[in-house]
């Protein structure tokens, strides 16, 4: 009996967004616009590398929440690389979103083994 081979292909579109600087009310609209474009292009998974974000306010947080909500609606999710700066991580703790967003290490952004 010949070998039966079945293959499936699963394509998951992951957007990796690396930010450097302040993510505040002034910069948030630009980030939202970029994320809107990714979502329109059917990206379902997002990684925000916040390592070098120096300051994060509630307007910046709102963009991350908005992407999370929309990603989940499309069976996707959002991962955060945690910011180094206290001025950026503080709001995530204050609002308890450190318990909502899954954090990963910077080294985990790109899958190993390829």
């Amino acid at each position: 009996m010949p070998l039966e081979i079945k293959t499936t292909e699963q394509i998951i579109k992951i957007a990796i967004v690396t930010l450097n600087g302040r993510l505040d009310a002034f910069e948030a609209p630009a980030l939202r616009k970029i994320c809107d474009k990714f979502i329109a292009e059917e990206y379902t998974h997002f990684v925000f590398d916040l390592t070098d974000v120096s300051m994060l306010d509630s307007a910046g947080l709102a963009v991350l929440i908005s992407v999370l909500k929309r990603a989940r609606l499309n069976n996707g999710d959002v991962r955060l690389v945690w910011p180094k700066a206290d001025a950026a991580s503080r709001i995530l703790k204050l609002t308890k979103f450190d318990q909502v967003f899954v954090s990963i290490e910077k080294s985990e952004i790109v899958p190993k083994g390829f």
Partner: protein
Amino acid sequence: MSNEIVTIHSNNRDIRIPCNYLRIHSKRAGVPEEIVNMCELALQELLTNLVEHAYAGDPNKLIKVVFSITPEKITIQTYDTGIPARVNLNHVRMPSPDELAEGGYGIAIIQSVMDEVNYFTLNGTNTWELVKNLKQRIRITDK
């Protein structure tokens, strides 16, 4: 440090001016980094609220910010002539993260990082006052 005044137009770009001013002068005065971060976050949130709500996005209005740094405390006052805030500071709550709300955090964040938050409106001028007590007195070096 005596009272220092920074007046800005009501837009999200100009908010950075008093925030940077606060950061630079607080650090120069010897305020611990953690306290500086908390005060800057509070000021950022307050000014964003004023731009968005008090002035409803009109970028041509003015906001005056007055800073005072003493060995015992940091005091930040803002003055605007926009729409008075309809908020009861005794009944502000942080939205639950489960709600995934995209707004409504500002005042709750301010209250959680500052020791005193006061608001009043008089003769068309709205005044916010934020106070952060310094647990360890600082020796003011910025004169």
